[in-house]
């Protein structure tokens, strides 16, 4: 009788443990099921998810955001696209890596002013900065990880028409499949060697886990 009671207790304990584990796993999984594209964008911008890194130097803030392939597909096609179109574009984006770098005044320190004119004294300096930011930033940026170092094949600065104080530049790195696998099998270091704002060399470290455990894009 005593033995039977003990067995029942053990079964109840194991059941409770399995239930709790299941609940924990379910809730963890649930966090990654985002309902809308806007949820996904908010998730990307949440610093805790590891896709955004920043440095604050000399009154400036430099933010780097990893752009997942699925986000880029959404940005290009929007919601009104066929699955075939999305898959085709996704395949294309999955063969590269994309990052968005934003250079702006450090608002937390009360810094203001258009970064394009920051610290400049002559028009020639302004012209040089505009030229560098539009055409030469690829020379100042690279991604390193697992013994691989690559420079972007493309950079494009968003035109803000003077409506914003910061500037965002998107960088695309083209990678061979094997190279991509090797690079993504470890942590990634996005390096920006600043020559424009006296910020020195800035490292933005992204964890492999954060880049690989992305939630599924809503609607896919």
């Amino acid at each position, binding site marked *: 009788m005593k033995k039977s009671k003990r067995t029942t207790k053990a079964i109840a304990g194991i059941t409770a443990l399995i239930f709790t584990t299941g609940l924990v796993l379910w809730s963890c999984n649930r966090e990654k099921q985002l309902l809308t594209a806007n949820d996904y964008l908010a998730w990307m911008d949440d*610093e*805790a998810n*590891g896709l*955004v*890194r*920043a*440095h*604050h*130097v*000399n009154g400036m*803030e430099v*933010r*780097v955001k990893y752009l997942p392939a699925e986000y880029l597909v959404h940005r290009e096609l929007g919601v009104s696209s066929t699955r075939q179109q999305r898959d085709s574009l996704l395949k294309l984006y999955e063969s590269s890596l994309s990052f968005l770098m934003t250079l702006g005044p450090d*608002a*937390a320190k009360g810094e203001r002013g258009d970064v394009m004119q920051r610290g400049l004294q002559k028009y020639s300096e302004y012209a040089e900065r505009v030229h560098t930011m539009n055409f030469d930033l690829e020379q100042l940026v690279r991604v390193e990880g697992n013994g691989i170092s690559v420079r972007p094949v493309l950079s494009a600065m968003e035109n803000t028409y003077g409506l914003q104080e910061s500037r965002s530049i998107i960088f695309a790195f083209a990678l061979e499949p094997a190279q991509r696998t090797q690079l993504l099998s470890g942590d990634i270091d996005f390096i920006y*060697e*600043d*020559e424009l704002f*006296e*910020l*020195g*060399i*800035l*490292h*933005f*470290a992204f964890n492999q886990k954060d880049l690989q455990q992305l939630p599924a894009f809503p609607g896919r």
Partner: protein
Amino acid sequence: MKTKLTWIAIAAIAAFSGWTFYRTLNTPRIAFVRSAQLVEGFTGMKEARASFTKKTQTTQANIDSLQKSLMQSINSYSAERSSLSKEEQQKREQLLGMQQNAMQQYVAAMEERSGEEESEMTQGVLNQINSFVEQYGREQGYTVILGTTLSGNVLYGEDIVDITDEVLTGLNTSYKASPPAQEK
């Protein structure tokens, strides 16, 4: 009577502790760092120097190649000089002079540019250090963090207020592992 004395003693101790606590809170926390050691030990400085040296080497290779080309032209002219007419000699010498001037101008421009780049590189590193020290000081509750320089604005400081090592460790850690972005 005894109880009264005990209460007075407790009140006196409490008042003294409160006063000490208040003083501690209001005592400025001052520390210093050995600036030169901080700059030299900073990984960002080492990397910036390596990057600068790499760029300088490319420029130097260009200068070497131009010098080599000029020397070849001079040697070639020396070998052929006796067989050339006076007019041809003048023409070749004029060309050599132009080549030499162009090279000197290039070297001067590169030296100037290199100097500017070195100064920008150093300023970038110093800005990184200054921004970090400012943040570190705020987070650790320092009122003032002084820096020793060659001009000697800190002449003496006890080891207990020398925070060079801990600042350097924090600086190098923050340099490689970029902190998450602050929420906007």
